[in-house]
């Protein structure tokens, strides 16, 4: 049990809680070029992101949602990383990057929470075509 105890102690490290309580880039953009939302029905986590793209670069980004500390902190951290980088670079971000950024050991049961924002990015970025607007 000691291994998992150590992991759990880390689970709610200060900066994770800080991102949860004071999320960065939280809210909506008025005229996003991409907007996408995903949920995890199992626990009710919801994360959505609005992207503003200028010359292939993520000029601005906002996220919204609700859910557990892991999903919301992960979303906040991801938006910090995405702001100002090329969309093509954003597409290269993978789950190891996201988990590395969180810097905590995530149990299998919670991995979906941590990766929900990445799913929003992936589906949103690849679905950049006008399909998304039709959906709205």
């Amino acid at each position, binding site marked *: 049990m000691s291994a998992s105890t150590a992991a759990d102690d880390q689970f709610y490290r200060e900066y994770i809680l800080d991102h949860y309580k004071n999320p960065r880039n939280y809210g909506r953009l008025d005229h996003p070029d991409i907007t996408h939302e995903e949920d995890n029905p*199992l626990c009710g986590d919801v994360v959505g992101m609005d992207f503003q793209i200028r010359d292939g670069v993520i000029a601005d980004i906002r996220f919204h949602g609700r*859910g557990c500390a892991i999903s919301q902190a992960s979303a906040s951290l991801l938006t910090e990383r995405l702001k100002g980088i090329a969309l093509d670079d954003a597409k290269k971000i993978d789950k190891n990057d996201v988990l590395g950024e969180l810097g905590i050991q995530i149990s299998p049961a919670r991995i979906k929470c941590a990766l929900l924002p990445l799913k929003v990015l992936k589906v949103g970025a690849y679905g950049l075509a006008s399909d998304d607007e039709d959906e709205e």
Partner: protein
Amino acid sequence: MNTNGARRLDVAAIRKDFPILESGIAYLDSANTSQRPRQVTGAMMDYFEHFNSNIHRAAYHIAEVATERYEGTREKVRAFINAASTKEIIYTRGTTEAINLVAYSWGRKNVRPGDLIVVTILDHHSNIVPWQILAAANGAHIEYVDIDERGELRQDQFRELLEHSPRLVAFGQVSNALGTINPAREMVAAAKAAGSTVLVDGAQGAPHQGVDVQALGCDFYAFSGHKMLGPTGAGILYARRELLEAMDPFQSGGDMIKTVRIEGTTYHDLPWKFEAGTQAIGEVIGLGAAVDYLDALGMDAVRAHEREITEYAYEALSDIEGLTLYGPPPSRRSGVVSFSLDGIHPHDLATIADRDQVCLRAGHHCAMPLMTRLGVAATARASFYVYTQKDEVDRLVGSIKEAQRIFK
């Protein structure tokens, strides 16, 4: 069945039968799946190690013993729920398969276009989705009985729906998400008077308060072994004999036939007509041992113990600031306490509780329509059984306070 309601459970002695508790966990997730005592795993191991063989077909000693023990569970279950005959006891994998059996074998034949099926917003997915599929296939429609602010079914609305003579009424004896104990007897009587066929989902009823299906008066009653100290993979469908006689088989193949010719097949007698293929023999034997175990405790004593723990938990949790409890008062609920904390997602609470070896369920409890109705995505849920003691509730309170400290 024991009728001495004054008898109290000797929880300390009971806990010695559950080796898993030696690890120090506070297991507060019995509504999800219960733990199994040595008597159950022992009965299964005895079969696997000494009598492992197939039933109903081999002419040697160990197969006779296996068949006898497998069929022995049927009589134990019959007595446990007071069914009229073992022919009315069908082995299934669990509640879900039992309800699917009814939806398929009874439903496809008897539900007609325009028919009404009544279920309730308290029901878990196993007692909703099969009816949705049946309704879509046969052109029927479904109405859901709503709950009031206490999490109890709106009986006025239920009576109104009965005026439309539903073909089928299906509801849970006890809600797994809120613990609400429904007035099953009155509801069955009213539905029968309206001419409906009635299925009672006993997944949370049979393990915690037992049932007398004849007194209840329902047509179908479904429950799972694994929520009542038995193993996974063995559950029960009780059905009135006339209904079973008229129903077509569910799954077909070996063991459910009498004769198979290329011109056609005649089916086996009840109950085997509904038990196709090689069954979960060891699991059914384990279920029999679970019934023995509960019989020895007495269901009145089981219910009394759970009520005491639930009252204790309800009071302890009521005292915590920022905590919202869902569902009816303890006297009207089973051993389930669902709640949420301001600013703390149930999954975060469950992770923090896990650090203290407190096993807590967080999520929608396979009752998403109910969660939607309550306006929450998920709740945390503690649920109790024969081995639960008050200090485990205290540990839960400790975990909640720790979570509140971390998230302050």
